[in-house]
């Protein structure tokens, strides 16, 4: 367990590239524009960067160094971090800790991955895992959650599809999303089967992407006269091995992370205005509504149907369109969520702006490992800087 209650780390700048299939870009080509954009957005230069943290899963050795050398950043420590879908957010967590520890005032965080290098299909998993040897793929993990959800709850496949409909409606207003078009329930359910009951449009698309943020101590932020947002909580948990029964509708790694984040920030789920959660598949959003405390256990379908998690509701979940619209370049997603939060908390989210947003949560969890709900989960809570 690794919990950081923070009062002095802030995110003062961020940028991302448009998510999509960028087969003609290298990892540097994806991420260097985002890194430079984040520096510009923060109003700082490369000379101000004291440490770099780079989250990625499939970039190979020294990905972070390959990226920042394009900007002429060297000498300072560059740390590469893999935590599957939580890699980018874990890099943010590491930057927050470095600032909390007091040996860094300004850190650059990069999240990047290029999934088109695999030519399509499901995320390549590690064949050493016994469940991978049985033929597990990530859609199957979520499909079994969905199957159990439909079995235990008063829910239908149409409810699952409504998650994708909402995500794509949000994504249609996001120029950084891979998909910027709306879909209907019928279209979602008629798309080709991937892992029953999940169809293609209920699965995040393959994609490439990169995002970057500048994390700064509160003292440095005030000296610089910058806005941005305060990291009120930065929580990282790992999955706990369980050899026997596991309730697939109650991911303990996400619920524990959320509990610790709320405690660190001194707020509750009712205070949130914006949530960017890990909707790699439609069922995930429903399960995480409950694990993150946005509703009581058993209340996910009612919450979705109520409209409270879209525009006009009291907490807009995945205003970016989520992974279902953006795609899920594994290491990039956690950082892209933080950039999205920054834009909302500084009134720069354009057509998809959540009005008067003060508090935002970002949540990523992932990795398929036998006996674990997921390998890693990272949750951040951000408050608009005063």
């Amino acid at each position: 367990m690794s919990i950081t209650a923070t009062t002095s780390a802030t995110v003062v700048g961020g940028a991302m590239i448009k998510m999509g299939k960028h087969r003609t870009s290298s990892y540097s080509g994806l991420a260097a524009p985002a890194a430079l954009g984040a520096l510009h957005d923060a109003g700082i230069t490369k000379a101000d960067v004291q440490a770099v943290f780079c989250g990625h899963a499939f970039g190979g050795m020294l990905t972070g160094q390959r990226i920042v050398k394009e900007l002429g950043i060297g000498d300072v420590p560059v740390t590469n971090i893999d935590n599957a879908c939580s890699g980018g957010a874990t890099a943010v967590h590491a930057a927050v800790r470095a600032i909390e520890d007091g040996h860094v005032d300004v850190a650059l965080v990069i999240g990047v991955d290029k999934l088109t290098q695999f030519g399509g299909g499901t995320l390549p998993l590690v064949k050493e895992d016994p469940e991978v040897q049985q033929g597990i793929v990530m859609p199957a993990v979520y499909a079994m959650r969905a199957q159990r959800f439909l079995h235990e709850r008063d829910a239908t496949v149409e409810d699952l599809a409504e998650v994708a409909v909402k995500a794509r409606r949000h994504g249609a207003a996001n120029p950084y999303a891979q998909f910027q078009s709306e879909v209907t329930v019928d279209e979602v359910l008629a798309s080709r089967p991937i892992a029953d009951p999940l169809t293609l449009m209920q699965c995040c698309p393959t994609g490439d992407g990169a995002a970057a943020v500048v994390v700064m101590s509160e003292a440095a932020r005030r000296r610089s006269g910058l806005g941005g947002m305060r990291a009120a909580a930065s929580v990282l948990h790992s999955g706990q091995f369980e050899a026997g029964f596991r309730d697939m509708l109650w991911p303990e790694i996400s619920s524990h992370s959320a509990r610790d984040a709320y405690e660190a920030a001194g707020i509750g789920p009712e205070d949130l205005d914006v949530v960017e959660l890990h909707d790699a598949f439609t069922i995930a959003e429903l399960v995480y509504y409950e694990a993150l405390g946005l509703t009581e256990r058993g209340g996910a379908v009612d919450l979705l149907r109520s409209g409270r998690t879209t525009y006009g509701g009291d907490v807009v979940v995945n205003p970016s369109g989520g992974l279902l619209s953006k795609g899920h370049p594994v290491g990039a997603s956690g950082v892209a969520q933080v950039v999205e939060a920054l834009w909302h908390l500084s009134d720069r989210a354009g057509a998809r702006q959540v009005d008067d947003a003060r508090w935002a949560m970002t949540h990523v969890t992932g990795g398929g490992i036998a006996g674990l709900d997921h390998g890693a989960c990272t949750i951040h809570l951000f408050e608009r800087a005063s």
Partner: protein
Amino acid sequence: MTEPVLMPVADATEDRPPVVTDDGGLRGGRCASCGAGSFPQAYICPTCNATDIQPTTLSGEGSLYSWTTVHISASFPTPYSLGYVDLADGLRVLGQLVAEPAELACDLPVQVVATDASPTGWGFRPVEGVSA
């Protein structure tokens, strides 16, 4: 006294006995110190960290907690079905399901079977004459 030199565990060898035992159970492990079961057989007990794990035959019967039919995979030709089975002695095992999707349902009683109909050579099938 000299400490023994630590050696790795040969857990990635292809030379392993069949998963399904002759008497229709699953080949797993049991910790001699705390009794915790494991599948596949553990070499360090996750419960008590003892290393004296003995081979054992686990129950081959259980309940299908959840399942899916996979239509996209680089592992095996598709479609194939997978499920989590809660064995009678408390372990959860992921295995191939040797059944038509229409036969499958959560909480369905299933039993392990060695069969060439599964790409892994073994899997679970519905217990005949029983439905969820």
